[in-house]
């Protein structure tokens, strides 16, 4: 049976390895000990931010592959994305890696959308080893979407800090002892007329709420069935709004609701509302969540990555911010 946007994976592809790299500022994150590689230089010793961005993706992919004793030529697909114009960092890392590559863009929701694509390819029997993930680099993204990094603009408390991180996962057919992808929901682009690019959490919250509602209804589950329902990068402001929206639909909002953006820099006030960026959800999902699943703390989790689909041009032309949220359900059998 085909249901709109709802996917169920009968073969339950597994995430057998993850690779997460992060920049120097991410040492302030409580998750830092779980990251595979943390650079001391935000440009990774390279000339430009964009080169560093590509290098981060490359290293994350190499780490994710090396954990299953593979090399890039063993991988069938590379499904990654970032936020820079035309995703050049992903493209450059794909050139270096030499894996058949599809660039994906769902803004900050790319971590889940790429994971879903990898699961689909695996389910169809077309892939035995797919690398999926997303990345962002603070300097490269800031200069594109907002102001030059050194520009002294006052950010409101709702503003989020784009993380410098890349997170990728190696997806293979079902393997015992690893978290596996059982089902997913592709979100609808939602736009409730928010226009403030310094309050992206508020813009993304309705999309996350919508996708969660659809996932629960479509797959016939309850929020309490999950050990953890983690959203991508709503930040503190967006997370509050999202919980209210979800509460309004009659779902019991309990402690199993978490947000990667709000937790990424814990309560450090200099990061204002929290973290954002494609790398934020990818880095937390592929460390904290996967580790907890492997350790047996979490049996069943729902990951909802959210993305604001704006461009600097659409904002300057006075358009609203359309948002997207994709959900993927992982279980530990």
């Amino acid at each position: 049976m085909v249901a709109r946007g709802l996917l169920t994976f009968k073969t339950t592809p597994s995430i057998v390895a993850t690779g997460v790299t992060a920049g120097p500022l991410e040492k302030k994150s409580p998750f830092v000990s779980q990251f595979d590689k943390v650079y001391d230089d935000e440009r990774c010793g390279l000339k430009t931010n964009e080169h560093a961005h590509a290098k981060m993706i490359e290293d994350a992919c190499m780490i994710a592959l090396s954990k299953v004793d593979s090399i890039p030529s063993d991988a069938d697909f590379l499904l990654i994305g970032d936020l820079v114009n035309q995703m050049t960092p992903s493209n450059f890392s794909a050139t270096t890696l030499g894996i058949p590559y599809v660039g994906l863009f769902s803004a900050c929701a790319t971590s889940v959308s790429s994971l879903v694509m990898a699961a689909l390819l695996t389910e169809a029997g077309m892939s035995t080893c797919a690398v999926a993930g997303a990345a962002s680099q603070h300097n490269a993204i800031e200069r594109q979407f907002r102001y030059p990094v050194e520009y002294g603009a006052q950010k409101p408390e709702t503003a989020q800090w784009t993380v410098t991180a890349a997170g990728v996962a190696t997806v293979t057919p079902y393997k015992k002892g690893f978290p596996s992808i059982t089902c997913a929901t592709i979100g609808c682009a939602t736009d409730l007329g928010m226009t403030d690019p310094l309050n992206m959490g508020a813009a993304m919250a309705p999309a996350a709420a919508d996708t969660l509602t659809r996932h629960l209804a479509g797959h016939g589950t309850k929020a309490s069935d999950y050990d953890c329902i983690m959203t991508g990068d709503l930040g503190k402001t967006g997370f509050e709004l999202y919980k209210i929206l979800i509460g309004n639909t009659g779902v019991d909002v309990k402690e199993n609701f978490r947000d990667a953006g709000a937790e990424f820099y814990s309560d450090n006030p200099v990061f204002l509302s929290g973290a954002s960026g494609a790398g934020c959800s990818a880095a937390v999902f592929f460390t904290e969540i996967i580790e907890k699943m492997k350790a047996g703390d979490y049996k069943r989790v729902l990951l909802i990555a959210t993305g604001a689909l704006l461009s600097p041009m659409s904002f300057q032309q006075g358009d609203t911010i359309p948002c997207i949220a994709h959900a993927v359900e992982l279980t530990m059998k």
Partner: protein
Amino acid sequence: MDEKKYAQLEQQTSPKTPLLRNVIFAFLTGGTICLIGQFIALFYMTFFDFTERTASNPTVATMVFFSMLLTGFGQYKKIGQLGGAGSAVPITGFGNAVISAAIEHKSEGYVLGVGGNMFKLAGAVILFGVFSAFVVALIKTILVKFGVISW
């Protein structure tokens, strides 16, 4: 949920802009920058042949120089986060806009990058400054011609 209701909910939930705090910090930051400017003007008046009026040019240039150092060493954005308009409105903020864009676009080369993007943020200020100067001077000249006002 429709757009209006959500906008309302968003207004209620999002943290309020601390207006009073922002205004006070803007006043203190802006005031301090101007006070430093006054000391520099005094310096130029005391040690060089500048009058109060002519000292403003080297003072402005010196303030932009300070702005360059603060921007280059990554301090101006911290002042900006604290002071808001207090650091954006003085000429140092204009300098910061030009200098930060120049540093940022260095990676695209000195001609296309630095040259082409230096006035990305500050260009609008120059445009409206020059245009409004033209309009104001034109209007005043015409009014003087018709004897409505005098210089």
